[in-house]
């Protein structure tokens, strides 16, 4: 049986924790609004870009001579770009992205492929380090970045393109969490290189257009392909930022609620043992008086 003083201390500490989780929840809620607008408004551009490229890929594929970024070479070396948060305390957010990446990595390795991992965000690295330590080629830290912009994504995109050009990998996949709502974030894998083809039902509807190019095909592809990768990375980062805040908000909400319950329970025990102590003392006094 803990003493009264122990109980009092415990209640005080849980109360302090609850204050912190409540504050974190409110901060996450405020940040969520900002990151959510950013993520949602970045979607159209990335979607259109994807569509334009898929159209382009389909029209070029018929002629052979496909640039490596578009059509890919072999598929023996895979690069997994795992985007996670820089901070923890956001529920299963980081773990679920890492789990998706880990499952993919294990199944690829089971097929005898080589897997390399590029971590964006410290938390993903922390989780994957133990199992895939040797395969992590780089960790990109975005902790210093306050508002994510195209510049940050572009730097990562360029790095991926440079790695691909150096022949470091054949297939590149991006892992991030798609923001659906505050309580639902969906860990997603998106193939970056080669550009994923459109789903077949969309393909059937339209006649395939043979494009004209201005200035010329090569120059456009040279500009469009790396840009597309940067844009898709930007989208992943923005979706991730919104998901992280959403996940943190609901994690902190349930933490505050748990703390509330714990305070209630502890206060009950505290009052009971205080009452028991008083009763005990009274009995002692009374029986002492009777003995006289």
């Amino acid at each position, binding site marked *: 049986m803990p003493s009264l003083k122990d109980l009092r201390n415990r209640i005080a500490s849980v109360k302090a924790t609850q204050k912190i989780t409540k504050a974190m929840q409110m901060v996450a809620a405020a940040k969520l609004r900002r990151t959510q607008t950013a993520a949602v*408004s*970045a979607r*159209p*551009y990335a979607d*259109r*870009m994807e*569509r*334009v490229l898929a*159209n*382009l890929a389909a029209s070029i594929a018929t002629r052979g001579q496909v640039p490596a970024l578009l059509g890919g070479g072999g598929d023996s070396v895979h690069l997994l770009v795992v985007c996670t948060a820089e901070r923890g305390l956001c529920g299963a957010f980081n773990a679920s992205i890492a789990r998706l990446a880990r499952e993919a990595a294990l199944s690829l390795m089971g097929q005898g492929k080589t897997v390399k991992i590029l971590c964006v965000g410290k938390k993903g690295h922390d989780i994957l380090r133990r199992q895939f330590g040797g395969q992590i080629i780089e960790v990109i830290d975005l902790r210093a970045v306050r508002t994510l912009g*195209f510049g940050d994504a572009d730097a990562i995109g360029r790095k991926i393109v440079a790695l691909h050009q150096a022949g470091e990998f054949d297939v590149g996949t991006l892992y991030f969490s798609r923001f659906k709502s505050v309580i639902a974030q969906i860990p997603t894998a998106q193939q970056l290189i080669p550009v994923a083809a459109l789903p077949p039902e969309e393909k059937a509807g*339209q*006649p395939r*257009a*043979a*494009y*004209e*190019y*201005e*200035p010329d095909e090569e*120059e*456009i592809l040279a*500009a*469009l392909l790396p840009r597309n990768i940067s*844009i898709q990375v*930007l989208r992943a980062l923005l979706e991730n930022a919104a998901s992280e805040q959403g996940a943190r908000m609901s994690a902190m909400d349930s933490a505050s609620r748990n703390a509330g319950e714990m305070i209630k329970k502890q206060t009950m025990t505290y009052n009971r043992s205080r009452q028991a102590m008083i009763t005990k003392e009274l009995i002692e006094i009374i029986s002492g008086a009777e003995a006289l």
Partner: protein
Amino acid sequence: MAAFHLELVSPEKLVFSGEVEAVAVPGTEGEFTVLKDHAPLIAMMKPGVVVIEEAPAKKLRLFVPGGFAEVAPSGLTILADKALPLPELDAATLDVEVGNVEEEIAGAKGNEARRMAVEKRDQLRELRAVLKI
């Protein structure tokens, strides 16, 4: 005039989506106007002004610092690096754009990249002279 579908997006947001009659696009090889049933085309854009004509008397002018335009059977898609209504464009914004390009020139690897960046800067300066800001 027959209308077709236009979507103009910048990385930040969907700027315009709707039926239009004609769109003038500043392509790197020269300005061109897209009408309904234009042949499929993918073009790069130089810094310039996109003129969207929703109706003969209703025109919308937007400054774009570059990007891509895709004409497909389903309509025109413009992927702009940025899109700013012309009345909101001022000297300071243009200065920032010129500064970005100057940086690009300084950091350009290889002659081809440098040539393209220098071209872009000249186009920005030209635009400034034309708009008198």
